């Protein structure tokens, strides 16, 4: 429809519109916000950011402002907790980050969803289902996979040398974990000797697409439960990532709710389109 009236949309913009339609169908409502936040907000929450680099400027009142490096933090900050109620939002925004290996800031397109409220297994499955449907939309006929893991289990077993162990986990570096005397429980999760039943159950919904892979676990400050990452063949980086982030929610003063969400990085799409 949109193509017919020749809006000259770029493929990633079409993908974004398709994703917005999908999330709308699942009862998520569109959330729009300012691109600016006060810098202090990020200084307080820097443990939850994957980047320490923030683009700042001074507003007309002399206040130090930042161009948003992350969407989830802003949504959680601006909405109010409604005990006993579920809130579902999706967004289609720009974020400002220095991508890895880049030497300056870039404006990146991100589309994603946030679920805030009581999370039960039905909700979790719906979010995983949406992640997979998103990958399908983006894949343009290529193969895709979703790695899932449980960040809570790593947080439970990790005792010492956390930074070095987390690095080995994200690098699937089993020999490194052994050198660091990482807890056996962690090594068994990494090698697949121990597969948690909860993840096994999720895998049965899409056995060909879901991999149980603990290298998906990152940032234990942010994530505390199920965590996942989507990959499309031919795209060198993960294109989708998300998980359960009650830790972040509670640090922002929420008392009763849980939260889960994911983001899609549309700028990585180019590889698939060409």
């Amino acid at each position, binding site marked *: 429809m949109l193509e017919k009236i020749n809006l000259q949309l770029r493929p990633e913009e079409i993908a974004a519109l398709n994703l917005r339609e999908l999330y709308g169908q699942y009862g998520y409502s569109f959330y729009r916000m300012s691109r600016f936040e006060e810098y202090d907000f990020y200084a307080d929450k820097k443990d939850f950011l994957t980047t320490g680099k923030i683009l700042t400027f001074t507003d007309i009142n002399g206040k130090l402002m930042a161009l948003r490096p992350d969407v989830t933090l802003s949504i959680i900050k601006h909405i109010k907790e409604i005990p006993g109620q579920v809130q579902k939002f999706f967004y289609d925004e720009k974020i400002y980050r220095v991508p890895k*290996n880049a030497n300056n800031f870039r404006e990146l397109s991100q589309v994603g969803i946030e679920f805030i409220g009581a999370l039960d297994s039905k909700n979790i499955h719906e979010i995983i289902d949406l992640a997979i449907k998103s990958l399908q939309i983006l894949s343009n006929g290529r193969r895709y996979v979703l790695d899932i893991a449980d960040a809570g289990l790593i947080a439970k077993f990790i005792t010492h040398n956390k930074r070095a162990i987390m690095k080995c986990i994200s690098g699937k570096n089993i020999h*490194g974990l052994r050198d660091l005397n990482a807890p056996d429980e962690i090594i068994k999760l990494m090698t697949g000797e121990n597969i948690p039943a909860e993840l096994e159950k999720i895998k049965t919904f899409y056995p060909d697409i879901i991999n149980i892979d603990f290298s998906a676990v990152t940032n234990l400050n942010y994530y505390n439960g199920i965590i996942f990452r989507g990959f499309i063949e031919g795209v*060198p980086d993960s294109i989708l990532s998300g998980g359960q982030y009650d830790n972040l929610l509670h640090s922002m003063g929420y008392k009763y709710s849980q939260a889960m969400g994911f983001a899609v990085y549309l700028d990585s799409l180019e590889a698939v389109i060409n």
Partner: protein
Amino acid sequence: MINIALPKGRLGVRVYKLFEEAGYEFTGILDNNRKLVFENKNLDMRCFWVKPFDVPVYVERGTADIGCAGKDILLERSPDVYELADLKTGFCRMAVAAKNDFIDDESKILRVATEFPNIAQNYYSSQGREIDIITLRGSLELAPVLGLSDVIVDIVETGTTLRENNLHVINYIADLSARLIANKSAYKFKCAIIDEIIKKLCSN
């Protein structure tokens, strides 16, 4: 098709020999010529020589599905890749070395010459020591001899070069060897073949 990035130089030759022993042969790859890309159509594999520091770049960006890199380079660059195996070859150590008569004055900022500024910075940060990093591209031993730096952070294999220049190791930072790395996304879709390569490389 599996694309493999190998580091030019001594370590690369050693690693390639592991590939050859495992049955992955690339005709002419060790000949002394300027060719950089070698293909084995039967194996559906392609191999190319790149500068050792660039191996993680090719792998991280997916131009190579897998690659072999020294642990020194992985520690220095911290690429976002999978480090799937220790190839148990090219053993050496990252060390701090100084002149034989060097006495560390801890009240001063330590001048450190190195090809590995991140490794040096991380090491001294973990000790709470303030340093002045001097990044060089080789012949590190010269720096303390000529007074450019107090110490060097460098790879030490046998220690012969250090001895010849009246230097000695004062601390070891890390054990090094060649590692097999893989692009995260490529590994998802070529896992069976990559695992088979690793199994064969590590069984020798």
